[in-house]
């Protein structure tokens, strides 16, 4: 009996890895044989980024049980620190693959540090208050990055913090051959687009490994225990602050890595891209995929990211139809019949459905 259950959760994890791998192989084959047109190919890397965003946000929202509305903030920290790392190392490390990997690690570390600093005040709060404060932090991060002017030359990195708004890239006083990486509100311009679909696939797999293994370990149990009952968790000797921080920082770091990949996929990228709407978009993926449900987040991301693109033929009515589809999906999946059906199709889902009746 017990082994059945443990095998079941292990099997769900395995199926998630397998599903992602199969999808990757199919898409790679399609891409190389010309089965995908240009706009479809262009969606591949952003989808990978958003999958990582959704899975990492699920760690905060679904597993830790706190609503975070500033996830895009961590993505932007990762994106711009990743771009700076990749661009300033361009002369030293010619291999784009290695630079991309370094950029993602730098993005993850920077976002992790910011996540830690933000987490100190934020994790003292709960519920609505936490949500509002993360929203504020997301916006603050965006505004701060808008003030950044960064360039690199033979002497290293030059950073100006343009709070007054009077400075321009000329104030960097770059040497001959130096390049401006981030131009304040204009964002990163002239970035080498070194992001690849393969890197996106690897990042997804690493994210899944970290999140899924964490959930099924002592750490994950502690985090879920805090979510289910904070007072009881405290009474069995679990440090609330510590485990909330672990979840929050991990989530931020993964968002940072996704951001770095995202940033290196576009030659021009402004900080305004990572606004409240992006945070909400990712939250929609998480909620529709099911809170705490990792593979659900992946599927919801893929479907909901492609949907607006697929609806292009409806032109003006595109977002209207998108919204209607969202509502219909929520209504449809929330009926008793649908839950029973899902329970039959998907192992491990039955109990959940029966619980909500």
């Amino acid at each position, binding site marked *: *009996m*017990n082994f*059945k*259950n443990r095998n079941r959760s292990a099997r769900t994890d395995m199926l998630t890895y397998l599903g992602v791998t199969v999808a990757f192989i199919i898409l790679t084959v399609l891409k190389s044989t010309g089965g995908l047109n240009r706009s479809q190919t262009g969606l591949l890397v952003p989808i990978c980024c958003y999958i990582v965003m959704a899975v990492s946000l699920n760690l905060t929202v679904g597993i830790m049980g706190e609503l975070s509305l500033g996830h895009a903030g961590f993505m932007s920290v990762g994106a711009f620190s990743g771009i700076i790392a990749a661009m300033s190392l361009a002369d030293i490390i010619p291999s784009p693959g290695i630079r991309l990997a370094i950029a993602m690690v730098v993005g993850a570390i920077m976002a992790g540090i910011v996540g830690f600093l933000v987490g100190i005040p934020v994790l003292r709060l709960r519920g609505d208050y936490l949500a509002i404060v993360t929203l504020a932090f997301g916006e603050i991060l965006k505004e701060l990055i808008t003030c950044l002017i960064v360039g690199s030359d033979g002497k290293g990195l030059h950073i100006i913090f343009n709070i007054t708004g009077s400075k321009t890239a000329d104030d960097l006083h770059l040497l001959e051959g130096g390049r401006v990486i981030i131009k304040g509100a204009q964002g990163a311009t002239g970035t080498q687009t070194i992001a690849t679909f393969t890197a996106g696939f690897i990042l997804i797999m690493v994210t899944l*490994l*970290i999140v899924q*293994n*964490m959930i*099924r*370990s*002592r*750490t*994950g*149990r*502690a985090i*879920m*225990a805090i*979510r*289910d*009952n904070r*007072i*009881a*968790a*405290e*009474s*069995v*000797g*679990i*440090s*609330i602050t510590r485990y909330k921080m*672990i979840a929050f920082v991990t989530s931020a770091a993964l968002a940072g890595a996704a951001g770095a990949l995202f940033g290196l996929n576009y030659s021009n990228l402004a900080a305004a891209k990572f606004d409240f709407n992006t945070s909400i978009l990712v939250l929609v993926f998480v909620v529709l995929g099911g809170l*705490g449900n990792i593979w659900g987040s992946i599927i919801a991301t893929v479907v909901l990211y492609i949907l607006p693109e697929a609806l292009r033929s409806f032109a003006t009515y595109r977002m209207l139809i998108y919204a209607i589809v969202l509502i219909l999906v929520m209504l449809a999946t929330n009926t008793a019949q649908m839950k029973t059906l899902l329970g039959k199709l998907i192992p491990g889902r039955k*109990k959940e459905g029966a*619980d909500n009746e």
Partner: protein
Amino acid sequence: MSKTFTKGKMVAVPSTSIIPERDIGSTPILECRHLGIDFGGLKAVDDFNLTIGRTEIAGLIGPNGAGKTTVFNLLTKVYQPTRGIIMLDGMDTHGKTTEQINRMGIARTFQNIRLFNNLTVEENVKVGLHNQTAYSTATGIFRLPQFWKQEKAAHESAMELLSIFDMQDLADYPAGSLPYGAQRRLEIVRALATNPSLLLLDEPAAGMNPSETAELMENIVKIRDTFQIAVLLIEHDMRLVMGICEGICVLNFGRVIAKGTSEEIQANPTVIEAYLGKKKKED
């Protein structure tokens, strides 16, 4: 290790309390002196003195609103006391947090059940074993050998603990789906998993039928004998309290009105008055 105790002779100890004679040689597990807490102007608990022996099963009773659960919350530092001291195994607990108190050896259950409802029964117990296992987050993520070794050990201890109440078969069910009585028992198992030296049970028999209560009484005694720990319980079921508690403390309006063995308590006029009210004066 396992020793069976019968209800022993109670002897007086300095701090105006009594403990079983067999525990007199060792440091009492719990010693409260002049403990009190105010909520605004209300003295919810005042001048609370209690000493519990190492292997004692003690009872805390009193009418509704007497402050019994508040005492539990003070002992586990959910509330910081306004006055007085709590000594746990001879150590002052001043300034400790709930989490540290648990590590020092107090585990508790709750009057309104607080389980981790979305986790399975086994996972609930494993959360209780949290500080008994010690591998880092990174070890868990990369599934290093320590992870497998300690998870296996945790699984075995969890099953062993569940077997106290014969609950191994329920291991895979979500804790929230269990019937009420089983949820109460699971809370006790989870508390035991933290390896306490003092177990606080807040109305363990609430909502149980007489046969379940009888079984629970046996199990509480069995737990004390097996783990050699002290138990302090709040309970309204007098059959349970009088049946297994050695020392009984009666609380009313936040103050101790009586302390003694079950026989003494039953004969105490103040206690009877607190529960049943004053006898009408005859003209």
